[in-house]
């Protein structure tokens, strides 16, 4: 079973900085971490490899410093890592990102399964998994919270819907996006760290990928961030007065009024 895991670098905290002109998130000087959900994706891939053998490769599109995080993915057990990095990729929305990642995945060679996180902690759309599936013309399943069964030809998963869950079976190759907490990610091992030191992270730019630059970056992104703003809460809190008993009474009155 050959598995590719998509990993994205996200900012370490929710304190974000935006370029005031392009409204694009400034990733340059931020110390990033692996998108927490992608650690579940990686772990799920490792678990499958532990059972069936094969390879786990990781791929990321991002700034050059992402290579550091890919090393971390190797120390967690990935066999190979590829970074897609090019100034032309800057400002990609989810459509352009899916296109670029799909090109990278194709270049990586044969695969049976692609695993993404359900969504990223920063942009958080959950679009990229389906985007890759459609671009590569293979099935996708999102929100997977349990892999029930996997064979050389099919995968059977459980995924939540709004009122319960579905058991869904798809032909391989396919893309799945895994829900958070699908597993307990393992820790970095000493051997892993040694392996990461030896492993060369491959870096491919737009030429090496053979992608159409008009479909990458801002140019290839149908959506534009017009503006960003911090939500202002004009609401001023009305503090209830009186003794605790009176306050409690008043709350009940309000609840009754608000309910209808």
């Amino acid at each position, binding site marked *: 079973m050959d598995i590719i895991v998509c990993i994205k670098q996200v900012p370490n905290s*929710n304190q*974000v900085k*935006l370029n005031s*002109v*392009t*409204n694009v998130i400034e990733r340059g000087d931020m110390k990033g971490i692996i998108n927490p959900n992608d650690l579940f994706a990686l772990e799920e891939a490792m678990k499958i490899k532990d059972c069936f053998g094969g390879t786990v490769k990781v791929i990321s599109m991002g700034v050059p410093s992402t290579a550091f995080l890919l090393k971390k993915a190797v120390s967690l057990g990935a066999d190979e890592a590829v970074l897609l990095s090019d*100034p032309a990729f800057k*400002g990609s929305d*989810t*459509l352009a990102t899916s296109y670029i990642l799909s090109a990278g995945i194709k270049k990586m060679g044969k695969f049976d399964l692609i695993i993404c996180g359900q969504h990223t*902690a920063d942009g*958080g*759309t*959950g*679009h990229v998994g*389906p*985007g890759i*599936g*459609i671009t590569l013309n293979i*099935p996708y399943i*999102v*929100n997977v919270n349990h892999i029930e069964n996997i064979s050389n030809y099919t995968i059977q998963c459980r995924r939540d*819907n*709004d*009122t*319960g869950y*579905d*058991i*869904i*079976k*798809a*032909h391989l190759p396919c893309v799945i996006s895994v829900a958070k*907490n699908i597993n307990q990610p393992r820790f970095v091992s000493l051997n892993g760290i040694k392996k990461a030191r030896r492993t060369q992270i491959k870096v491919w730019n737009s030429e090496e990928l053979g992608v159409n630059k*008009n479909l990458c*970056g*801002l*140019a290839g992104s*149908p*959506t*534009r*961030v017009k*503006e*960003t703003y*911090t*939500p202002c*809460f004009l*609401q001023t*809190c*009305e*503090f209830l007065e009186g003794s*605790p*008993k009176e*306050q*409690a009474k008043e*709350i*009940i009155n*309000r*609840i009754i009024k*608000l*309910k209808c």
Partner: protein
Amino acid sequence: MAQIRIIKDRCFECMACIDNCPSKSIAFEGGKFIIKDNCNACGVCISSCSFNAIVFDEGQEIIQRKREYRGVFIYCEHENGCIKDVSLELICKGREIANQLGEELSVIVIGHKIDNIAIELTYYDVNKVIKVDNSLLETFNEYLYVDVLEQIINVFNPQIVLIGATKYGMALAPGVATRLKTGLTADCTELEIENETGLLLQTRPAFGGNLLARIICPIHRPQMATVRPGIFMPANKEFERKGFIEEVPVIINKSEKVEIVERVAKESICSSNAEIIIGIGKGIGKPENIPMVKKLANKLGAELGATRAVIDAGWMDCSYQIGQTGRVVSPKIYIALGISGAVQHTAGIISSNTIIAINRDKDAPIFKIASIGIVGDVMEILNLLLDEI
């Protein structure tokens, strides 16, 4: 590809566009601006210009093509013969947008044995109900549904498509948008039409609600968005039928590639549809106090939620967690008991109609977003509340 045009009368020759252009495609030579061939119309210069002097020169071809896309389309989600609330909310909002644009509102309904749903939809203020009924579409299957929705959109060429940001909606929408090679904004909490351009302004929270981003899709069509449930008012049924039903022929290939083996309904612990949700924070003191809160919840017909601090302490199961890394809820009333109001938590409750907070710290951040507050000991108030009801 769109080109960039500089409107001379508005330009102050400040050169901000040249400084900001990532591909160095703008030059100023001999008193004139020159846009070089390597311009990829990324639009950075447009936002960098303080004088609104730069516009997309879309060219006749794109303007013509954009004109061919008309109408606002809603994807109707339904379950067990019932229309989902979010779809009714979208009909209401969609009607407003369609009126503003002077265009029609249509609803798409896909499934099997959905005659009743299609008829019910005609009782809302919609112009058209587009129905695709096929036994292969009985249960939601993104592999087939993406295909069907893509075909419908290609028949009608709407300029806006709105889908509820439910689990299925979020599985369906990105597939369709990628097929159509158009933009999609996820999980919007606000939609409006920009007066000057007629573009759909799509607002969504990012970074756990710390930031709101307003997103547009200037050139590609349709403009697509998934919309968070519980934000807009639902549409009201009208007394007479307004819309008519149109069945569209689509090609549905039975595919073995994806198969729904089983659909299991489980009792939801805490559905986001609750009118009242009581949020439990670390401030309730100890897990032994939770049964008291449950008692209050029972009396009010409310459901429970909790902060991560409570989950991490092992007081409650993680399925109760509300917030950035938990569930997002939008009840009529959210009662925050001993919750400090960290942004990661408030990201999940911000679209509640009313937030009532009880906290002994008058400066707790929760009071910044609450509309009704009590400064006091939560267990004392809780006891009194139980006496009062």
